[in-house]
Structures are given as structure tokens and as C-alpha cells.
């Protein structure tokens, strides 16, 4: 479904170059539940951004559903991103002025589908994450765990092939963390492909497959599949 090969991402820092990704090969198959671990600065977020078409590679290729993406312009990448990828962030990133309903429907605005998701779809995904009863509220009226559930609902609204979650439990207490991980596990059991970045070894255990990164490279792979 997603094939990343020989991925290199360099950042210029004044005169010096930082290699955030240094030759990463990775294949994601439908139904995967992959955890990415590694120390801070090892390139996990950079990898997620590359996989999520948020960023372009310095070299290497990314195929999404057999489509080579390096030739796409930013508008094409944006459309592909809205249709194929759902992001879940550490800091939730819900828009404070919008209601839960409108936050969840935000990706639908940009999906450019003939039949974009509507209120019933929003209710459906909110029900799936157990937040439908708060549909008219604003994000600041919700707890951290609840906000993360809403942001997962938002990631699901366009029925993406892949959900990318970059430290989704980093801002949560342990009880909420367990609940959110349970939610991801259940979603994966229903067939949803998920990649999750984490520092937490317990979380990594939760996922079926995991890779470990250091200095922009994958140094350990455990793909049970």
C-alpha cells in the first residue's frame, strides 16, 4: 500500500546539513499496525511527515497505492493526503473556534469528492470513538482524552487508507493512554491501517509490528505480520 525506498531527507541548518532520514526502506501493507520507536531527534516525525505527504523527500521514492508521489505538485499531494491519510497529533490540534462536529468534518471540506462526508458520517465516526454526545461542544470544553478521541474521529472521516499518529498519547495520563491505545487496537482489528510513533515501550508492545530508529535510519525491525 505504501512503499518507501531509499528515503533521504536533509535539512539545511545554516552551512551544515542535517540528515533527518538517511536511507529508509519501509513497506506498509493494508491492515498493518506499526509502532515506530526511537530516541528524540532520530527522525520519527520526519518519517511520518514523509509518509503523510506533508513533506517532500530530498531523494528516494514513495509509492502510495502504486502511485509514485515525487512528481506530484503540492495541490495534488494535498488532495491525495486528504483522501488517503488521517493524522492524529500529540497536541490534538483541534480548531478551538469550531464545534466538535465542524472539527470532525474539516477534512471533508477539502476531500474534493463527489459526495463529501456530511453530518451523519460525522455522527458515525464520533459514535465509533464514543464522543457523539458532545457533538455540539467546543474543544476547550473537553478533557485531553476526549479531545484525542475527537481528533481520531476527524482522522477517520474521509475513510483514509492509513492513519498516522505521532505520539498520540504523549499528552495524556496513563488511564487515557490505555483507552486511546485500546481504541487504536480495536480500529486496527476492524481493518484500519495504523502507524503510531511512541517513546513508550508499552505502546510499542501493543502494536503487532515495530521499527526502531536512530540517526535517521531504521536500526531494528520486527515485522511479525
Amino acid at each position, binding site marked *: 500500500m505504501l512503499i518507501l525506498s531509499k528515503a533521504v531527507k536533509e535539512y539545511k541548518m545554516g552551512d551544515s546539513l542535517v540528515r533527518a532520514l538517511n536511507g529508509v526502506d519501509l513497506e506498509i501493507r493494508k491492515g498493518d499496525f506499526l509502532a515506530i520507536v526511537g530516541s528524540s531527534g532520530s527522525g520519527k516525525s520526519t518519517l511520518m511527515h514523509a509518509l503523510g505527504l506533508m513533506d517532500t523527500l530530498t531523494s528516494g521514492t514513495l509509492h502510495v497505492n502504486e502511485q509514485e508521489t515525487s512528481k506530484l505538485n503540492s495541490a495534488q499531494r494535498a*488532495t491525495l493526503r486528504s483522501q488517503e491519510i488521517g493524522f492524529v497529533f500529540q497536541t490534538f490540534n483541534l480548531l478551538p*473556534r469550531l464545534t466538535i462536529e465542524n472539527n470532525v468534518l474539516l477534512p471533508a471540506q477539502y476531500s474534493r469528492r463527489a459526495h463529501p462526508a456530511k453530518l451523519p458520517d460525522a455522527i458515525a465516526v464520533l459514535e465509533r470513538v464514543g464522543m457523539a454526545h458532545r457533538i455540539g461542544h467546543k474543544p476547550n470544553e473537553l478533557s485531553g482524552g476526549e479531545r484525542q478521541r475527537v481528533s481520531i474521529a476527524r482522522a477517520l472521516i474521509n475513510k483514509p487508507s492509513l492513519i498516522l499518529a505521532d505520539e498520540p498519547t504523549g499528552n495524556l495520563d496513563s488511564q487515557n493512554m490505555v483507552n486511546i491505545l485500546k481504541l487504536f487496537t480495536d480500529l486496527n482489528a476492524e481493518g484500519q491501517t495504523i502507524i503510531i510513533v511512541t517513546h513508550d515501550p508499552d505502546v510499542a508492545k501493543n502494536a503487532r509490528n515495530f521499527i526502531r530508529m536512530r540517526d535517521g535510519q531504521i536500526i531494528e525491525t520486527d515485522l511479525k505480520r
Partner: protein
Amino acid sequence: MNFFSGLLNGFQEAWENKFRSLLSMMGIILGVASLVAMMGVAEGLIRDFRAIFERSGGIERVSIDQTKVPEWQKTRASISSKRTLRDLDAILDNVTLADYATAQFNANWKEMIYGNRKYWSQITGVTTDYQPVFNVEVADGRFIADIDVHEAQRVAVIGTNVLENMFPKDVSPVGLSFNIAGLPYRIVGVLKKQMYIRGGRNILDRLNQVVYIPVTAAQSQFGKLDEVHGIYLKANNVAYLSELVSQTENTLLATHRGIHDIEVKTREEDLIELKKNEAGFKYSIGSLAIISLIIGGIGITNVMLASINERIREIGVRKAVGARSSDVFLQFIAESISISLIGGVLGILFSFALVNVVMSIMPPNTVNIILTTEAFLLGFGASVFTGVVSGIYPAFKAAKLDPITALRYE
């Protein structure tokens, strides 16, 4: 995301930040209000000018002026008499492009006596066609007739000021006789009162002061036979004004025995002058409004930039969930337009209030302010335009934000 949900979003944003939005709208409100109100003042003045122009014969009126004889004809100039009634007859016979032609004899201010009343008035000798050429309206009785002119009858048509100052109230003066500079005249008509009040004053009042008598009677009493002080024509079709002018010139060249001592003048120059004034007026108002709209636009740009700075993360999120740069651009342009639209509507309302206040504190008929739909549309259009222009830079800035940087932004 379509443009209208963008506008709606913009209205919401403006509502969320009421005070800031209002501040940023100040320039637009003032700009649009001054634009609309000043357009109203200009429109009023222009209509005044035009009304007066029309009441004095409009563009159809053509006059024959005396001019200096050119250098090369100086020695022979005496073979031509000046303007005479023979000129008028020749015009009436030959100038087919004029429906009416009249001559005028200015007897100037003369004393009039009725019983024990004395009154001074401007006595003008005219012919029957004077009425259509100068759009004179008679309220009571009739105007000077052809037969009065032919027979040099001592009859008079008087203005309302003369009526009010010399004759009994509540009865028609038609048929009464009075003296003009010692000779008796019989009143045959009273003119309609001419009123056009501006600045608290009837600017047409001198037209109520006049006394018209047959030109021949005026000549025999106050001047020499045949002498006239003005000849006027009324064109039957303004499309052929220049043809009318050459017809008249040719005719008069014959009666003046080849001497170029007259000039046929149309009021086109007056009209051009009028239009120039109108244009000048509109330009100065326009530039004033543009200055305040520019200031208003800068206000909006500033608020948009501040708002974008606060919402960098929002932009990152929108892009992460699939917004293209063009979506973000459109969103912020729509927001800026919605701010300026609100400003424009408030400005139009404000101009309405402003005009009403001005009209109510000024004495009646001092100023004539006419708010036209055109002015409203212009005000509205100007606000939308300002919104677009002032939104471009902030929207561009927002659109080109890198989503990853935007998401990392604290």
C-alpha cells in the same frame, strides 16, 4: 471549501473579535460613508446646475452675439448695421433647422406707476417666440402675441414680484393699465413664479422681477427702430446644432452684407463646462474616498496579518487534513472581504445617517443631497474591492506557509 462558506467563516471570525474587527473597519466605514455622502452632495449640485440650465432654454438655445469686425474688414465695417429685426425676419424665413427665433431689446430698469404705487423693474422687449426659446411659462392671461409686435401695442406681461408689489391682491391684474416710464401699458399676462431655492435663497428670483413688452414698443419708446440687443433661436433637433449654426451664419452674412460682425453661439460650451465641473467634482470626491479606502485597506491588512499570526497552527492543521494553498488563500481573502463588506454596509448606513443629520440641521433647501443607487453600488463595490486588495498579501502569506513549520509553531 467554497467561497461562501469562506465568507460565512469570515463573518464568524469578525464576530469573535468584535472590537478588533470594528477598529479595522473604521477606515472602510468612513471611506464608504464619505464616498456615498459626497456622491450625494455632488449629485445634488449637478442636478441644480442642470435644472437651471434647462430652465433657461437648455442646449437647444442658440444665441447671436455681436463680435469685433476682423482686421481685414475694418474699413468696410460701416456697411453693416448691427443686429436688427431684419436679421430676425431673415432667420425666420431661412433657418429651417430652428423652430423658433426671437429678438430681445433691453430697456433696463424703468420706473412703473400704478395708482399711487411705484416700482422699478427691468423692462425687456421681446417677440412671441421668446416664450418657447426661454421656456417662459404664463400663469395668468397670455404672453406677447404676434399682433402686439406687429402693431407695437403697449401691452405687458409681468413677473410675480411686480404683481405682488404693485397690484391689488387676490384679483387678476389682467386688463389693468399702468405706466412704464410715462406711457400707459395694459397687462395681458402674469408669469409663473420661478422658484429654485438653494442656500436659503431663490436663485431664480430675478426672473420674477421682469416685465415683457413687445420689442417694437420697446424700440419706439426707449431706443431706435430696428435696434435689438439679442437674437436667440431654438433648435428643433440638437443633433443638427452645427448645421443650424452654419445656416444661421450664412443667412446673417447676407443681411450683414458680408461683414463678419456676428457670432452664432451654442450653449455646448456651457454644457462642456458643466460636464467638466461635474467630472472635476467626482474626481476630487473620488480621490478623497480612495485615500480613506486605502487607509481602511491598510487597517484590514493589519488585522488579517495579526489574525494569521494567531492562527498559524490552524493553517497547519487545515493543510494537514488536505487543504491546498489555494484553499487557504481563498479562505483568508473571503475573510478579508467579509470584514470589508460589513464595513461597507455600516458605511452606507452611516452615510444615510450622516445625510439625514446634515439635512435636518441645515435650513430647508440649503443643500440638495441625492443618494443614488449608483452611489450605494459604488460604495459597496469599493468595499469589496478594498477587501480583495487588502486581503491579497495576508492571504498569500497564509497560503504559502509550510504545514510542518506551521504545526510545530507554538
